[in-house]
Structures are given as structure tokens and as C-alpha cells.
């Protein structure tokens, strides 16, 4: 079966969406240039023209309000932010309008807007080019939030988002872009709220989102050599969150590490832990552990980045702690 990189899978999702429905339009700074946002939009402008594939003024707020208007009028816009950090200017449009549009129109009007945001990491991106706030989006009602870890999921979730009815944020971690896995050629869907077991195991559940998934899988390999059989589940979407899968897995292993590549306090790892706690906390054989970024902004220096971002070894340590 054919393998694609994460970036190629995104490109294929967008190409297929634009081909399937001419209501699909793509907007973002530089989306119509050859390099195409790390390859994810390359070729679209040549194929579908610069009206449907629109280089935008550096005006993220307008770009987002305008997407609301476009969606109201029947289009299915896809917005692209080269860094998540650039979208903060658009949070009024998202929180005060987009997220509550369906609600306050009593379902008479809904907004199929897909917002692709790339989370920077490494090479000194620093505090203004590396934030991820998927937990904010999960907290805000009215948005769906995908945090795909594989090329397969990313393609399917983008298509599902574009052809769904509700506004959706797709969190794409930059470190995943050159990783590749099997991706079917057809236009397929991956549903929101459906996680997947990436590696079955008996001893402990590692519940992960996004870039934490490949790290956890590598850690699982190491831990297996120590005789720890770790189950890695990929929740895929932060909202809705696949509670059933989570609880089923923890019900089996009775141990939990909640892993998220986001800040610690009030983040997705806290949500995962709260779900387990309120549903089956007393069945756990050990107190669970969170594996997250510290409550800190991102340092630039490579040696501090090392320290800041959790890696395989950090995961192994956390797991060993829970295994006791």
C-alpha cells in the first residue's frame, strides 16, 4: 500500500476536496506559492486558480470573519495558518462568532469552516512560533478539534471536516510533516470522537494526542524490553473525545498516563485524567500521571528545547513510576 508523508496526505485531502466540490476554497498567506505551506498546498493554485486558492493579506481576524460570511453563503472555506501563533488575532472571530453561530441561529445556519493550524517545534521557534492551544479549542463549545498523529488520520479528518457542518480546527504538529504511513487513495473519512488503539497492551494505558503518539509508540518499544506491555491509544480528536475507547482501555490495564503535547494546567491531559477519575477512578491500581509540556513558554536555545519538550525517555520514566 502506498505511503504518503503527513504533508502529502494533507495536500491530497485538499486536492480531492476541491475536486469533489467547487464550494471548497482555501485561503491563507502564501498558499498559492510553489512551496505551498510545507508542501501542503503546492499545486492547488495551478489547478484551481488563485480565486479558490487565495493568498491573503496579513489580516487573520478578517480572514476568519470572512470565512464565516463565506460559509453562511454556502462555501466550505479552509483557512491555513503557517503557525498557530498567528491565529490569536482571529480569536474574536472564532469565539464570539464562529463557535456560537449554529447555536444562536437554533441550528438554522451552520458553518463548515476548516481551520488548519501548524504548531511549530524546534530550530529555535521560540515562544511566538510554537504554541498550541488545542485545549482552548476543546474547552470552547461549538468547535470540533482534531489533533491527527498520522498521515492517514490527517487526510481523513481534514476531509471529514471540510464536508462536515461545523467549524473545526485541525492541529498539525510540524514535527509530523515528514513522517509517512499508508494512506488510501480514495476520499475517505475519519470520524470525530473515534480514537484508535495504536498498540495493544495489558499493563498500562498511554492515552495520547498528536505528536505524543509516535513518541509513546517508541517508548512502548523500549518498555516492552523491560517487560512492560503498554497500550497506546490515540484519541485523534480533542473534541469530541473518545471517552468509550479511553475507559475501555483503562478498564483493562487499570493504569494510566495521559499524554499531550500542550501545556500542563487545564490542558487535555487534565481532561483525560478527569474522565477516568470520575468514571472509574477507584479501579486504578496506581495514581495516574500526566505527561505534558511544563507550564512555560518555549525557549529558543537548542539545549533548553531539549529540556522543555518531553521525549521517549521522559515517557518511559513516567510509565515506570506508574508501574511502581
Amino acid at each position, binding site marked *: *500500500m502506498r505511503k504518503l*508523508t503527513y504533508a502529502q496526505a494533507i495536500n491530497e485531502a485538499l486536492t480531492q476536496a476541491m475536486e469533489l466540490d467547487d464550494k471548497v476554497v482555501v485561503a491563507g498567506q502564501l498558499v498559492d506559492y510553489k512551496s505551498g505551506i510545507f508542501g501542503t498546498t503546492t499545486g492547488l493554485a495551478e489547478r484551481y486558480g488563485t*480565486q*479558490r486558492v487565495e493568498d491573503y*493579506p496579513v*489580516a487573520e*481576524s*478578517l480572514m*476568519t*470573519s*470572512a470565512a*464565516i*460570511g*463565506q*460559509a*453562511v*453563503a*454556502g*462555501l*466550505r472555506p479552509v483557512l491555513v495558518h503557517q503557525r498557530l501563533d498567528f491565529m490569536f488575532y482571529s480569536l*474574536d*472571530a472564532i469565539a*464570539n*462568532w464562529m463557535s456560537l453561530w*449554529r447555536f*444562536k*441561529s*437554533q*441550528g*438554522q*445556519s*451552520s458553518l*463548515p469552516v476548516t481551520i488548519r493550524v501548524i504548531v511549530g517545534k*524546534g*530550530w529555535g521557534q521560540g515562544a511566538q512560533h510554537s504554541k498550541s492551544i488545542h485545549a482552548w479549542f476543546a474547552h470552547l463549545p461549538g468547535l*470540533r478539534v482534531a489533533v491527527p498523529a*498520522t498521515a*492517514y488520520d490527517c487526510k*481523513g479528518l481534514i*476531509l*471529514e471536516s471540510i*464536508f*462536515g*457542518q*461545523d467549524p473545526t480546527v485541525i492541529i498539525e504538529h*510540524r*514535527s509530523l*510533516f*515528514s*513522517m*509517512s*504511513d499508508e494512506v*488510501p487513495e*480514495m*476520499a*475517505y*473519512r475519519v470520524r470525530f470522537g473515534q480514537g*484508535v488503539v495504536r498498540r495493544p497492551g495489558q499493563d498500562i494505558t498511554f492515552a495520547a494526542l498528536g505528536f505524543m503518539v*509516535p513518541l509513546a509508540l517508541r517508548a512502548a518499544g523500549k518498555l516492552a524490553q523491560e517487560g512492560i506491555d503498554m497500550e497506546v491509544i490515540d484519541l485523534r480528536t480533542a473534541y*469530541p473525545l473518545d471517552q468509550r475507547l479511553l475507559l475501555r482501555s483503562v478498564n483493562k490495564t487499570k493504569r494510566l498516563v495521559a499524554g499531550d503535547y500542550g501545556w500542563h494546567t487545564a490542558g487535555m491531559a487534565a481532561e483525560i485524567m478527569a474522565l477516568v477519575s470520575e468514571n472509574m477512578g477507584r479501579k486504578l491500581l496506581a495514581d495516574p500521571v500526566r505527561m505534558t509540556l511544563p507550564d512555560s513558554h518555549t525557549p529558543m536555545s537548542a539545549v533548553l528545547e531539549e529540556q522543555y519538550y518531553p521525549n521517549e525517555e521522559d515517557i518511559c520514566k513516567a510509565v515506570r513510576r506508574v508501574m511502581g
Partner: protein
Amino acid sequence: MNRVSRESIRAQGRYPGVSLAGVAPELAMALYRFMLRLRRCEESLIAEYHPADQMRCPVHFCLGQESVAAALSLVIRPEDYLFCHHRTHNWYFAKGAPMKALFAEMYGRATGANGGLSGSQEISYPALNFYGGAILTGSVGIATGAARAQQLLGSDHIAVAGFGEGATDEGAFWEAMNYAALRRLPVVYLCENNGYATWSPQHKRQPQDNISQKAAAFGVQTYTIFGNDAVLAHQTVSQAVAGARAGQPALVEAYTYRWNGHVGPENDDVQNYRPLEELAFWKDNDPIALLEEAMTNARLLDAARKQALEQEIAAEIAEAFAFAKQSPWPLPADWRALNYSQETPRADELLSDVESGQFDQHQDEAIPGPY
């Protein structure tokens, strides 16, 4: 020609009179009827608000600001889009949305335009492409996007944004001006400059009274008028809308004045934020009275006709109140369904389900590039 400004309007004293030259009688009557109906509607809502205390939502009334919406109502088409700010009633009626659904919405009833979810300041009427909302300047960017959609879809519909001069304080406004001019969008920005954002006068927030000049520098066609002349407003809005349909984005800045308090039925003049003679000046330049005078002089209106109109309107208002009050409360809410669509018809149609288990999800790794 000297630019119209708030100062030039005050300097002129009472408006010399609405000119009906070349105006069809039905047009004048339609403007008059719209304004009178809106005025009576607002007066009744204000009168009923507190004794009953059943309209439990913030309401921004628009007494004195009837003319621009009246003008628009005769120009905008059902398929056109209209997005407006917190002061919604005039715009709601401009799009032809029904009075009953407005009243019921304010009463929080199931039969309200949004089933009681939105109230006055966020009301929408999707079937007529009308959407209000209470966060400043939001509607401007959204209208801009709806206009862009018309351009992409090759339709000849336009989008209109209705808002006050306060919306131009926000940077978001200027992003929209730039983009509308860049893409030559079919959009009309209707700015009712009533001189105040809540209680703060324009000169306390902006160094000059020159919104139109700024918009012109951004490349948008601008019109600046004494807004309380409904006939002039109609001519101007017609021109702006025709231009927009031909791809010329426009801003109409119409000077007007709000008689009532900023929000709620109470007068807020205890705040001492505006000179009473200013209010008196603008009441003396009442858009309804100005048109009424001209129509009376032109024998387009007499006491009997007015009386009939008043009765018709009073009856409609009474009916709307009765409807609202007798309507059922909303059923218990299903929060999930209200906030998230439960169906995905387009995805069902276009996308396949695959059994992901059949694919190898093992990831090959590569080192990502530096930026």
C-alpha cells in the same frame, strides 16, 4: 462641495426640507410607512418593557434612526445578505423579517426568530439572510466574506453590513475596508453615525469626524449624508447598492441620532454625556417629521391616511405582543445538538468509510527541516 459633517449639519440649523422632486409617491409612502412602523414598534416595546418585565434581554432601541433602514428596505433583495450589530430592530425590518418572530424572540419564546436563544441583540432570520450580533465590528468582516462568496459564486447578490460609527474604532474594520477594495467586492457598509458609542462621543475616541475620508483612502467608494432625510438616504443607498452589484464596494456614512438611551428602555441622560440641546436639535430634525412635512406639502399624506396607517400599525403591534405572550416556552434544551450538528449529509455523500485497521499505521520517520 463642502463635506457633510456633524458640525456642518448642526451649523445649518433645521434641515431645509426633504425634496420629493422626481420621487414616486409610492416610494415616499413606503419610506414613511417603514419608519412609522419601526417607530411605533420601538415605542411600544419601550412602554411595555418594565411594567411587564417579560422581555428579559438587553435591547438597543433605535428611536430617531429610522431612515437608513427604511431606505435599505426598498433596495435590498431577499437573496442579498444583511449583517448588523447590537441595535438590530431597524435592520431586521429592513430585511423584511416578521414582527411576531421578533417580539416572541424578545419574550424568550419557542416561536421567536431563534427560539429564544438569541434575544434582541443577537437575533437572526436565516431564511432571509439576516444576521445580527452584539460584538462590535463583527458583522463588518462577516458581510465582507459573504460578499466575497457572491463574487466566487458568480452571483449578482450583494452583502450589506449595518453598524454605527463605533465599529470604526476597531482595527477589524480597516482590515475589511482594505480587503473589500482589494477584491472589489459587492458589499455596502452602512454606517449610522449617531455620534456616540454608548456614552462616549466620537471626538473622544477619534481625532477627527472623517470616517468616510479614511475609508476613501483605503479605496472604498464613500458617501456622506445627512441621514435623517429618508429620500436622500434612499437615493444614496440605491446608488451604493447599484455600485456594489457592479463590483464597487461602498461605505455610506449617514449622520443621525439616537433619541433613547443606549440600552434598555430607560433614558440614560442622567449620565450627562450629551447636551440636551443636541438631543433637541435632532428631535427637531426627526426623519419621520421631515418626510411627513414634505409629503403633506406635496399632498401625498393627510390626516386620514396617517390615521389609517397608525391603526394598521397599532393592530400589527398588538397582535405581535399577543402572539409573543401566548407563545410556549422553549422545550428543555439538548445542549449537544444545539452546539453541534448531528448530521453530516455532505460527508455521507462524498466520502467513504474505510476500515482503518486494514492499513499499516506504522510511521516512517524523517528529520523535519529547520523552519
